[in-house]
């Protein structure tokens, strides 16, 4: 039974240099991208995309992700075409996704897209003549978020190897959690999964851990992270609960407070894909272990690296 698999050899998507799912990347590729990202952190403004046109197609709005990508393109000297909301485009007049992508791939050198449907980016990468970077397809994948998570982990811990990662919150639907688990599996991690009963990690991911010899334990209370190197917090969303009474019961139980970080390892860092609502108390913000705002800034460097790899221009990096 092999439900979940990492990439061992370049897949179809790799041939076109698209990034649709984090499992499109091999371990070597992940490390290469992270290395590029650290070069962009040192020297963010480089004219590597001079003369290139990058399309940012946001079929559903996501200001945070779009600004991060567009900042990355601008720092690399590229030009941007696109839209930030599908209601202003021909797809709202019934044009198929295939036609929109085919048209745009005639104009642009690279497509960065976000779409409300699961699998839209994979389909676009098959239709498009130019590489596609997935900036979120429904509830399925958001691989550049995972790259910035990995970059943040590597930067704060000095390595990705042999870390203990505690994941908290919505582990059932949280796509950032699933992608991070798959990506970290290359680096001999161990995990603690903390979630309310309704939002526990799906069995296929536990099966994946088991088959790959990855140690994990499951808890239902937000306690005991003495052995954690990374505390990865996610949002527990009300709409995920069938029974709102259950939501009311757990919503405050899963709030991280500053005093809970007493006695944790000195190298521990708290990550969160943002936006947070109430799962991290604001009294944590001034703790040196709070890393979620720097984590967001790392997104620009990680996206610069992913874009350069997709366009194969990394040889010119200073």
């Amino acid at each position: 039974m092999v439900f979940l698999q990492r990439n061992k050899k370049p897949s179809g998507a790799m041939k076109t240099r698209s990034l649709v799912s984090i499992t499109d990347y091999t371990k070597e590729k992940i490390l290469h991208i992270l290395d590029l990202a650290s070069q962009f952190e040192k020297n963010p403004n480089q004219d590597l995309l001079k003369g290139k046109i990058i399309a940012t197609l946001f079929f559903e709005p996501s200001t945070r992700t779009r600004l991060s990508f567009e900042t990355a393109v601008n720092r690399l000297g590229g030009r941007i075409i696109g839209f930030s909301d599908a209601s202003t485009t021909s797809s709202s007049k019934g044009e198929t996704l295939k036609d929109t992508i085919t048209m745009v791939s005639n104009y642009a050198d690279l497509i960065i897209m976000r779409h409300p449907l699961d699998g839209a980016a994979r389909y676009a990468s098959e239709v498009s003549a130019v590489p596609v970077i997935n900036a979120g397809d429904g509830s399925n994948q958001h691989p550049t978020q995972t790259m910035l998570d990995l970059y943040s982990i590597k930067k704060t811990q000095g390595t990705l190897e042999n870390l203990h990662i505690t994941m908290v919150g919505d582990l059932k639907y949280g796509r950032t959690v699933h992608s991070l688990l798959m990506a970290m599996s290359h680096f001999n991690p161990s995990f603690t999964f903390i979630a309310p009963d309704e939002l526990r990690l799906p069995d296929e991911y536990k099966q994946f851990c088991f088959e790959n010899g990855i140690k994990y334990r499951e808890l239902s209370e937000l306690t005991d992270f003495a052995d954690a190197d990374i505390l990865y917090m996610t949002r527990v969303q009300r709409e995920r609960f069938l029974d709102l009474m259950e939501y009311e019961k757990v919503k405050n139980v899963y709030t991280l407070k500053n005093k809970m970080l007493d006695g944790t390892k000195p190298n521990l860092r708290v990550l969160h894909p943002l936006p947070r609502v109430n799962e991290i108390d604001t009294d944590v913000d001034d703790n040196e272990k709070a890393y979620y705002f720097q984590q967001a800034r790392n997104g620009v460097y990680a996206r610069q690296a992913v874009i350069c790899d997709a366009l194969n221009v990394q040889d010119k990096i200073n």
Partner: protein
Amino acid sequence: MADSKKELVVVALENGTVIDHIPTDKLFQVVSLLKLDSIDSQLTIGNNLYSSKQGKKGILKITDKFFEPKEINKIALIAPCAKLNIIKNYEVVDKKPLELPDEITEIVKCVNPKCVTNNEPVKTRFHVVDKNNVAIKCCYCERIIQQEDIKIQ
């Protein structure tokens, strides 16, 4: 063996294909999957027949028709226990278990209502991730579908 011989005799088939041990509630799905409702060959459909293994079963006998493995193996999606008998000159010359291909295109509908294949004109494509228990994974939305949830388009 004696059991199956007795049944094969019921409607003796000179040449053709017998698909045996089809679950009774899947029989007509198999008929439509193989497009047997529109073939010219002589077709015998038996349902609710006694089976020592299953209690009740369905059986299809198609005269002078031999399927490509790619075509016939599709039925493993809905009736993985069905047995395939190739008949030549009244003899069973080949008995084959069904085997799922690695990839399934077009015939299955993705269960995820938010999948791009259910909202845009996209042909479905699935990787078979578990051949024994029958589980398939959508190549687009990456949802895993177990045998009991598989829907034929």
